[in-house]
């Protein structure tokens, strides 16, 4: 067994056993850690593997969340079914954005702007759909918080804890498979140099489109979790630029295009954010945006001192092999 696998096993064991010792507050923080590890991993497929920057990724979280929630609230469709609709909606919208952008050669920063525009547009659209609660929000009826109902995704906080743990493990394994697959190598080639990729027979348009659609679909599943865990959705939060930035911080801090990066990044950033919030509250001043400011500063520090992210640096320190899939030795 590789040291990589041992590390992963230890981490998994720690998370699996945490509820034995941790109180409700710590568990709720760990849920947020895993949630950001999950959506960060999903975003990383697009940016880290295929090199396509999405700055409006909360669009897919919001679409997934609203789709599954609205189906549940209005039609009583259980989450276990609603998630398919949620993923399908996000895949479709991701496909449209990708097709538009890539067909007309919108690249790099301009593509990123396009993703922001779509997220903003959707926010405004959703504020005007009465069935979705408009700006006043959409609320899911809170059921029995003692039970465990995975089909309707109603129940005890521990159920959500283990669900997001399973999702995070699942997406990690999926991404690990992907980077070692033909499709994964195709993405890496496109990320590194599109012209060279095309010269090797790679259909660049299709490669980018599959990355966007897969990333969108997986992100939407994170949105379903979000909706049923928090039970309320507001367009100006669900589709806000802030949320999009939060999604991308963990993989950037942890290490773009690496498998551990999003996990490590979330493990660093979420507790950091909590500490900052607690500290400012304890000191008795309310400074809106202080958390964002600290996030920004830590991001600056990362870009300055560990431009490849924390994980590539830590990996070398621990003497571990690269994750494979485009992580050769320097």
């Amino acid at each position, binding site marked *: 067994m590789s040291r990589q696998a041992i590390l992963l096993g230890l981490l998994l064991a720690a998370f699996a056993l945490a509820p034995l010792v941790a109180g409700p507050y710590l568990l709720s923080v760990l849920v947020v850690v895993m949630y950001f590890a999950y959506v960060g991993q999903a975003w990383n497929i697009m940016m880290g593997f295929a090199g396509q920057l999405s700055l409006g990724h909360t669009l897919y979280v919001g679409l997934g969340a609203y789709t599954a929630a609205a189906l549940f609230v209005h039609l009583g469709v259980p989450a276990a079914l609603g998630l398919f609709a949620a993923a399908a909606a996000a895949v479709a919208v991701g496909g449209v954005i990708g097709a538009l952008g890539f067909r007309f050669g919108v690249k790099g920063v301009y593509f990123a702007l396009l993703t922001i525009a779509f997220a903003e547009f959707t926010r405004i659209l959703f504020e005007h759909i009465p069935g979705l609660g408009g700006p006043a929000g959409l609320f899911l009826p809170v059921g029995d918080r003692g039970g465990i109902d995975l089909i309707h995704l109603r129940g005890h906080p521990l159920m959500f804890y283990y669900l997001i743990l399973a999702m995070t493990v699942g997406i990690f394994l999926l991404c690990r498979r992907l980077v070692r697959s033909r499709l994964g*190598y*195709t993405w890496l080639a496109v990320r590194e*140099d599109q012209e*060279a*990729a095309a010269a*090797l027979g790679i259909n660049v348009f299709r490669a980018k489109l599959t990355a966007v659609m897969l990333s969108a679909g997986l992100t939407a599943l994170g949105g379903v979790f979000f909706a049923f865990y928090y039970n309320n959705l507001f367009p100006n939060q669900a589709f806000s630029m802030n949320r999009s930035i939060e999604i991308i911080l963990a993989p950037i801090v942890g290490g773009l*295009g690496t498998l551990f990066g999003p996990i490590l990044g979330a493990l660093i950033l979420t507790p950091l954010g909590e500490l900052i919030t607690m500290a400012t509250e304890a000191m008795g001043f309310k400074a809106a945006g202080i958390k964002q400011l600290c996030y920004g500063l830590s991001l600056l520090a990362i870009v300055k001192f560990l431009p490849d992210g924390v994980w590539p640096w830590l990996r070398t320190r621990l003497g571990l092999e690269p994750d494979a899939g*485009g992580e*050769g*030795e320097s």
Partner: protein
Amino acid sequence: MSAAPLLLVEGLVKNFRGLRAVDGVTFSVNAGEVVALIGPNGAGKTTVFNMIAGVFQPDGGRVELEGASLVGLRPDQVCRAGVGRTFQLVKPFGNISVEENVLIGALRWTHDVAQARRRAREVLDLLGLADKRRQMARSLTLPDRKCLEVARALATGPKLLLLDEVMAGLRPAETDRMVETFRKLNRESGLTIVLIEHVMRAVMALSQRVVVINSGKPVCEGVPEEVVRDPRVLDCYLGQEKL
């Protein structure tokens, strides 16, 4: 009537705004041949390659592979039709390993990553890059990057290989070694090669036929020994340089 040549280029024209970069270039390459395309800087050689490879659409003329037109195809479609090419300005996939660079080339014809990896190792062996296979491509020296360009294109399993100045900047011994590699490939697997090259040592040693262009226009064509003595070639190209 003989069968169609492997590559046919006829009356090729390309304009860049005011400039006519390629103007009526015509040549054909039979299967199994090694043909050199030479000419002074800015003659339009790379532009001809780019039109064959689908990077630029020609403004006129024909490009055919085994009788089927390549005009209008995208670069990836041209590659899948059997044309491998290298870039004069090398384009390595910098942040992945040398082996993975070549493996991606081999994925053109196989979906099996393990098989692609095996092929990548063979190709790297052939080109003398085997001991660097685990390095990141961005850490290679320029001669090694040129070599990697060739390895990647070769791994796609082309019928026709377009080489754009892959021997520029190599030491004479390295040039000879690469020439030997191409000869071997040509002899043993019948690989057809069109090479753009300023290194006359390589052109003379490798090519069976030479096509000369200048200012986008065809100058002459023939066996290497004749071409280098042709007054028109001496006038526009070789006269100014060595020889």
